[in-house]
């Protein structure tokens, strides 16, 4: 891989992390929140593949990336399931509706 591609990939990882963290702060909708978390996970998966490439073990990097995607899909599913329950009980997906616990 030539240095320019490497740099491009690195930029992609960093910007995905940035978008993800920014989204996590501003999103008020539960479904969007799950999507934002998935963006973060994709950044991490790309980062692992890149790390594999940089240490000349691209096979290892790719298998780590795929494992991460599989593992974090489960988190997304659980998140969505909770969002469904919230919609059913409260009739809204707004996170601000969930603020009974304080102190």
């Amino acid at each position, binding site marked *: 891989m030539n240095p320019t591609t490497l740099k491009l990939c690195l930029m992609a990882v960093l910007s995905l*992390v940035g978008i993800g963290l920014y989204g996590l702060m501003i999103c008020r909708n539960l479904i969007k929140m799950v999507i934002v978390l998935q963006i973060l996970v994709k950044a991490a998966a790309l980062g*692992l593949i890149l790390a594999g490439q940089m240490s*000349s073990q691209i096979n290892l990097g790719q298998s780590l990336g795929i*494992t991460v995607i599989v*593992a*974090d899909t489960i988190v997304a599913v659980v998140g969505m399931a*909770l969002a469904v329950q919230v919609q059913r*009980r409260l009739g809204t997906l707004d996170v601000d509706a969930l603020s009974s616990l304080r102190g």
Partner: protein
Amino acid sequence: MTYPSFLWLIALPLVTAPLVYLAGRLGKRIGQRVLAQGAAIASLLAAWMPFILASVELRIYGPHSFAAEAISLRLDGMGLLLAGLSLGLGTLVVLFSGSYMANEAGEEKYYAMLVAMIGVMIGLGCTGDLFNLWIWFEAMAVSSYLLVAFYRDQPASLEAGIKYLVQSAAGSVLVLLGIGLVLSQTGTLDLMEILTIAETSPLMLAAGALFLIGFGVKTALVPLHTWLPDAHAQAPSGISAMLSGVVIEAGMIAMLRSLLALTGVESLWGPLLMGFGALNMLAGNLLAFGQKQVKRMLAYSSLVHIGYMLVGLGITFYAGESGGAQGGLFHMLNHGLMKGMAFLAAGTLLYALHLSLGDHKPLLIADLAGAAKRYPIAALTLSLAVLGLGGLPPLAGFMSKWQIFVAGFETHNAWIGALVAFAALNSVFSLAYYAPLVNAVYRLEPSESVLSGKPLSGLMKVPLIVLGLATVAIGIWPALLDWLTVPAGATVLVGLGG
């Protein structure tokens, strides 16, 4: 090929968890609801056999590894300690949950997830590879999300579950980025190899910081703790006991393993751990003080105890003596027992006063007034637990705190001396919120909710009595647990190259 017995220890709960679920479904169909609980107890009791064998093997052969393809497992003192804690507390929680969870929808899922979570935590303690560590960590997180949000028709439980999920998932992404950095710099994921290869570089430093923050969310380092009081207070009481007694400690073991692999990179980890310890003690005490809900108060006090453990571990990272880590890990065990007992005792009272009458109100300290008259065992164990947590001799909590403090003074460093004095002051201050609880339970006239509460079933009291006896016994003979804490402390030292 022979399989070491710790492999069975990990595999048994994981393999039997789906069977527990099936047994529960079958039990529902034939009208025998106890089948799920029975299967869970059988599964965990069966896992005690390989645990005993593994502890004997560890004593005879020392730490040993097992590797198959990409799975790398290694049994050492720290892994055995976490296995003992999660199996011990887990068995008692399953025993306790019988009448507490009866008549809840999805009871069989509760037991299956609980057994799976115990297996995953044992695996987490026994991993020898950085990426495997993350997989176990994520599996533990997923099973605990479902258990926290178990009362899915209660908005408060859903809120706690979502807060926990979002924060924990963000933390685990940070860990993954750290793993990527380590892989790109060292070309390996094996924890032992990283320790020998890793050199000081800004990227490795960043990796360490990512591990500290990412695992720190689960360990509840202040200010990453905001999910903890909600999750601990809203989960079913058995799960509160597991979360506070084992899950945050498992997060700490994961953090410890990853940072130990990076000790060659930076000498700052020790002071950082101690700094977070001080912050945790102070913030936890201030937040617990003035809480009106029993379970929230206990949850905040977990922050304080994480602080003591971090101080102990930080002393060893800094000074290279095993005393601090041994004390910290001893405190981890004691905290698991005492906080488990506190949550289970609070759980029995919550069940008797509110849940069995069908309302999901939180248990207030005011509700407990005069509880000793009607519920003597629950009141006694709750008081024993909080006094032990407050560090009153001759209970277990005093002994492990004492060990940490002694290790701190032995470094002859003025800063660490001051930190230890600060920890001791915090320990005294914590009695300011524990003592009113004991006072309310024993000295006030029974409240209305106590008078209208339901009687307790006998099986619920068994775990309380066992934990109460253990707390007193460890307080009087602290050497009783040396077989677990000494090898665990030695593991930290080996990691530090001492």
